[in-house]
């Protein structure tokens, strides 16, 4: 799988929403970055900073009002199976069993049935759901459902996996376990992952690169290169998160976000 080098390139992307009454909303302004294949990028920022908008543009659900996005040199003009997406929740198909959910992508592409079956078994093993194949998705817990969503996305063997707050609806313990799973998948498959999150800790722990985004207009405020994701599999997560370097970065990013929040509050309040 390693030969396929598909770097992501985002150039001067603008996104302006026209509001029927009132001023147009500048969701993204002059966003540019290059992301090498096989990196894990986390997007962090206060609400309204355009991180989900950016993810939707990368997925091809939204067309930017300016600029261009390319993956391996090809323009992104719509959704495609080389860019898989994992949603926060509610995106699984309740009328299908776990197996059939995972096999949905290959089935839509009319892939060989035998191969698909083997692949589904393999993926169930990888995400830790071996033996759950014939269960119905509504019988599973929230964490297990997200495992199914990950497996379903991987079944199409995408180059980039986009995750929109994939762990946002999970409880703290399940969340930590799932963070471990995402790191493991990233290391084992070598896929590019872009993950939107609200949690500073999650962004630091998972991201091998991290953007802190700012609102009004939505833009990339800081671009960090982080060592923690690389260490993630060798060091105990608890130990890693308790390390002084991790704590320092967390405080630094938190203070940036707090400043932004205060700036927003200050603008809205007529002092």
């Amino acid at each position, binding site marked *: 799988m390693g030969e396929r080098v598909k770097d992501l390139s985002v150039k001067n992307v603008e996104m302006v929403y026209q509001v029927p009454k009132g001023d147009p909303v500048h969701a993204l302004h002059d966003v540019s970055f290059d992301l090498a294949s096989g990196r894990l990028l986390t997007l962090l920022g206060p609400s309204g900073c355009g991180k989900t908008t950016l993810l939707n543009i990368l*997925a091809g659900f939204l067309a930017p009002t300016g600029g261009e996005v390319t993956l391996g040199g090809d323009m992104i003009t719509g959704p495609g199976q080389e860019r898989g997406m994992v*949603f926060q929740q509610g995106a699984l*198909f309740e*009328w299908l069993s776990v197996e059939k959910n995972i096999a949905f992508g290959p089935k839509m592409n009319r892939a060989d049935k035998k191969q698909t079956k083997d692949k589904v078994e393999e993926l169930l093993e990888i995400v830790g759901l071996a033996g759950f194949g014939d269960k119905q998705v*509504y019988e599973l817990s929230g964490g297990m459902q997200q495992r199914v*969503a990950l497996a379903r996305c991987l079944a*199409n063997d995408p180059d980039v996996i986009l995750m929109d707050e994939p762990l946002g609806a999970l409880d703290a313990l399940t969340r930590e376990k799932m963070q471990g799973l995402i790191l493991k998948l990233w290391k084992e498959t070598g896929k590019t992952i872009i993950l939107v999150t609200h949690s500073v800790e999650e962004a630091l722990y998972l991201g091998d690169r991290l953007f802190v985004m700012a609102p009004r207009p939505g833009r990339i405020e800081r671009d960090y290169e982080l060592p923690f994701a690389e260490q993630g599999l060798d060091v105990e997560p608890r130990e890693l998160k308790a390390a002084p370097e991790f704590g320092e970065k967390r405080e630094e990013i938190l203070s940036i976000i707090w400043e932004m929040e205060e700036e927003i509050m200050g603008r809205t309040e007529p002092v």
Partner: protein
Amino acid sequence: MAESFGAGVRDDETLEVADKVGRFSSWGLFNSGSDTRLTVAFGDSSAVRSLPLYSLLSLVAMIVFWFIATYAWGLPDEFKEPGLSDKLRIAACNSNDACEGSFSQFLGPLTFPSIRDTWNTFFLLIDEGFQNITLWAHTKASLWRVIRGMFFGTLFGVPIGFAMGLSSRARGFFDTIVESFRPVPPLALLPLFILIFGIGDTTAVRLLIFASIWIMIIAARSGVQEANLSKIRAAYSLGASKPQVLFRVLLPNALPQLFTGFRVALGVSWGTLVAAELVGTQDGLGSMIFAARPFFRLDVVVVGIIVIAVLGVFMDIVLRFLESKLIPWRGKG
């Protein structure tokens, strides 16, 4: 101290009842609540269920009331006065020979028919029928009409509803039609239907299509509209084409709404049936009731009413059972 909470105390008997409810609930007959020992249950609707024992009680109460009303009290005396009822009966039967032979044997006093009269009439209707058409033939004719009405109502309604959920043009175009026809009771259109389509079986079926199609359109539309955007987007990301999104995501996703719409439409159709069968049909429960009315054959009317009620309940039970089998994810998504 637990006793002072009142609502929290549950003796073995109520727990046993809850067990029985649990068994019924798998049939989709009764809502099953949780079996936890709540300290305060009042106002918590999840703790409220339809106890089968009490459902049985109300059925018995209805029968007892019927018994008392027809035997113990009957109707006011002037209706029982032989002269009047005889005159009425003669007047009624002079105009038609059909009731000549049999009616005096089982037609009771001109009151609301007693349970025994109705019971006897029921078997007489099964064996000999009313105006030479057996009860089973009437019932079959009615069911067949409802089935056809629902079939075509669904066949045309669902695609229109889907179009309204998927295309702004279709929504704009059909909105006016749906919103202006939906509030019109089918019965009000009966004279027009007779003028346009004439009298007969197909006109009745057309009226039933009219009764069900708007409900199916709205159910299908809301089924599409309420689809979670994440599901649609996930499907596109997984490489699904537009037809695949329609048939493999939108359609199964709308099944719960379609099923609810179907149940409502079936209830309305069944209710419209009697009116639909006014349109010059020879058979059917509705036409049986209307044919019996001028002859004061209230026993036949009551049998017709009971058969309609029992079949309505039966159909709903079958649909609920089908729903629990076909849409097991409902309410769990």
